[in-house]
């Protein structure tokens, strides 16, 4: 949007803590906070590490691979923009954090390996979703 200042664009939702997450999403990189003291990943972002109370939180790019921790196929036409059936899920990233997400590209099951994909959005950063890894 041409009328937005660069500053507003840097915080697309007005949340300064999550701004680096969405800036990375614009580059199609999935990032999570990582504590420089204890090494734990933390998602969503907080001003310090809930595990060790450490102050030095850095943003680290994650691989974008993980496992479906739970999922539900929605058969209700209740949410604007979502045509049933579609799959809502929680994916456990290999680095540890869980993300609420969608599984796209066909049938899936709990325990399936998945990898990152991006859903473009009008006027907003793309949204991280997941698809099944190719069978090897």
């Amino acid at each position, binding site marked *: 949007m041409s009328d937005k200042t660069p500053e507003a664009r840097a915080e*697309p939702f007005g*949340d300064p803590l999550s701004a680096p997450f969405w800036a990375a999403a614009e580059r199609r990189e999935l990032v999570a906070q990582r504590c420089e003291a204890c090494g734990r990943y933390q998602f*969503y972002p907080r001003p310090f590490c809930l595990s060790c109370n450490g102050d030095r939180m850095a943003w680290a790019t994650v691989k974008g691979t993980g496992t479906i921790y*739970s999922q*539900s196929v929605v058969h*209700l036409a209740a949410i*604007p923009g979502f045509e049933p059936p579609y799959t*809502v899920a929680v994916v456990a990233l290999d680095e540890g954090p869980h993300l609420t997400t*969608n599984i796209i590209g066909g049938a899936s099951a709990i325990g399936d390996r998945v990898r990152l994909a991006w859903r473009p959005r009008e006027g907003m950063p793309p949204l991280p979703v997941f698809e099944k890894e190719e069978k090897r």
Partner: protein
Amino acid sequence: MAADREQVYIAGVAESPLGKVADHTELSMVALAAREALGEAGMTLKDVDGLFVNYMGEEGSVQVGEYLGIQPAYADSTDIGGASFEAFVNHAFAAISSGRCEVALIAYASRQRSRRGRPRQMGTDNYTLTGQFEGPYGLVMPISHYALLAARRMHEFGITPEQMAEVAVTARNWAKLNPKSWIRDPLTIADVLASPMMCTPYRKLDCCLITDGGGAVVVTSKARARDAAKRAIRVLGTGESHTHWHASQIRDMTASPGAAAAQAAFGMAGIGPDDVDVLEPYDNFTGAVLQHLEDLGFCKRGEGGAFVEGGRLGPGGALPSMTMGGGLSYCHPGALGILLIIEAVRQLRHEAGARQVKDARIGVAHGIGGVIHSSSSTVVLARE
């Protein structure tokens, strides 16, 4: 033996109008229930000095206080979802036993069936964490959230759709015995499994009703409970906890805050699950009842599905549960928690009519709250 001030009682309970309520507002429903519950306690609104409400609008206790003409010495509008009401007994116990108030009124009413006001989408404000990280994925509140819990439970423990359906059938079997139940038609496991799929694994009949309804509960000191027109029921133990708001923040979807709530309540009561004669678990979804049974210690982790088989929770079963028909068949006015307490008290007074559990002496109400089992709260009650 607990000192007198540490002995707290429920001296009155009442439902508001239930089902589809055309001729009242939420506030007038609360007023009717409050007057009736206080009548059972031998009191009127003028005796109330503690007010505990949730979901009654902004600054809920202030609005209800004005409507009822109550100026409380102790006010509480804590919102931990549908589990708030068992938590209010916990809070009222603390307030009464420490002398902050003596007559606590807990009240709730909703017309969510008549008003069709329940939102389906959460996180529509992009500023919020929910709006950024959960809202954009099309979760249908709260069915798909609870479906995620049930799906994981099935995956880890081999829980079957039939076992979850048995919970709905059990609730219906109790509802047949309660003239106030919203639906009393016969129901079989096959009927549940043939109902429309909503969000896997939950079908329509795995999900609670959406009705109008509400109620009121009067909690008071031992001294004031002596005035009660009906038998007062002792509050033996209370507990509460909450663990998360977002699905992504749950590390283990087969655990819940209910275990901590139950442990606190049973620990305070000095008794355990083997002592319970009647259980009122919050049955918003069939699978949630399995979690409650495990959290309360009636069975081991993962064994809730096998536990409910064969009508164990039903009329004549070893652990009578959801005895008014539950949120699945009796009434689910958005927040069921207050109705669990009301039914447990009626069972312990031996005034439950055709659904009365014989010789019931110890009853438990166990609440759940939040769109994805964020909170739980437990109340252990005794007939003395």
